[in-house]
């Protein structure tokens, strides 16, 4: 699994050099072929809802009323705030997801902070720190 994640990390660090299809294929391949079982036994938070497969690395903080899955990988030291919903996505290490954000078919790069609230985001790569929707659209790379 680590090998595939490293490859995806490398690809998204320079998204423009890769085709949209290539990124979607990499994401699909990882979620379908390398994320078969859940690991949800160790997190900090208050009993979210999980639809398997969901894989949580270490020190993941999860807020209230969160729904994770199906097909979600969450890296180390990630903070997921209240009312968040994530499906079909990879969230890399040290990321913060703001309240009531809904993510589907996304890759969120390392050290990204989405400090904004109440937004549906789908089919894209996000890397960077944003507070407003305007800033979010600037860093958004749509691959579908």
């Amino acid at each position: 699994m680590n090998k595939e994640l490293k490859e995806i990390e490398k690809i998204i660090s320079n998204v423009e050099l890769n085709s949209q299809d290539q990124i979607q294929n990499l994401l699909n391949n990882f979620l379908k072929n390398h994320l078969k079982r859940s690991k949800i036994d160790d997190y900090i938070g208050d009993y979210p809802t999980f639809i398997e497969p969901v894989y949580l690395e270490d020190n993941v903080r999860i807020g209230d009323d969160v729904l994770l899955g199906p097909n979600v990988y969450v890296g180390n030291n990630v903070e997921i705030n209240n009312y968040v919903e994530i499906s079909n996505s990879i969230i890399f290490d040290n990321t913060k997801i703001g309240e009531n954000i809904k993510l589907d078919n996304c890759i969120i790069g390392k050290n990204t902070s989405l400090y904004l609230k109440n937004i549906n985001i789908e089919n894209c790569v996000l890397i960077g720190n944003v507070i407003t929707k305007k800033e979010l659209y600037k860093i958004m790379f749509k691959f579908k």
Partner: protein
Amino acid sequence: MSGKRKQEVQRIKELESINLAREEVRDLVIATKKEVEKDNDLLAEQINNELKNYGIKSIDIVGAIGAGKTAILEKIGEKLSKKYRMLVICGDITTRVDADRIEQHNIDTVQINTGRECALNAYHIYQILKNLDLNNYNLIFIENVGNLICPSDFKLGTDKRLTVVSITEGEWVIEKHPMLFKMSDIAVINKIDLLERLGTDINKMIKDAKNINPDIKVITTSAKEGKNIDNLIEALEL
């Protein structure tokens, strides 16, 4: 609506009691509750249409913790896994114990851990089905979280609903939980192998189910001994 107030409404909604809402948010809480129920029913209808389009038969199973839902599913699985391409969606607060048991019968499973939610809802099922290739299946069972109360609030979009109780829960269990029996097609009274030892009045249980819902089919089973599982399969029209 401010974030704080939204949070407050959410909390009250979770507690499922309008009485707890402060006077100034009471209307809002009632409106929110109605919307949630409406949305769930619409989604359930959409799910049922989608499953029918794929020619998939669907059944959801509800019942208290330890009534024998998984044991019955295992016995059905043993008999039908060669005839049907089956998927079982298992709902539990936590763990995948039930899904692991069912997988031993070569049946595909998906586990939902609902955490603080006491029942599955149509959105959980929608999220699972949307991410599966439905061509792979022609029979889907949904095993709800062990609970005789909350599942009655949420339709899941299946063709039939099966409620399982066991004689160990006492002869008043059906009379005390009328909502689920009203909306079920079949009632299973399980663990009849213990009838002699416990002396539960099973005739009262059957009578109660029929009084609550005259159309309900009542089957008495022993999942442990495999007794009357064929009758149940027949009642499910499988």
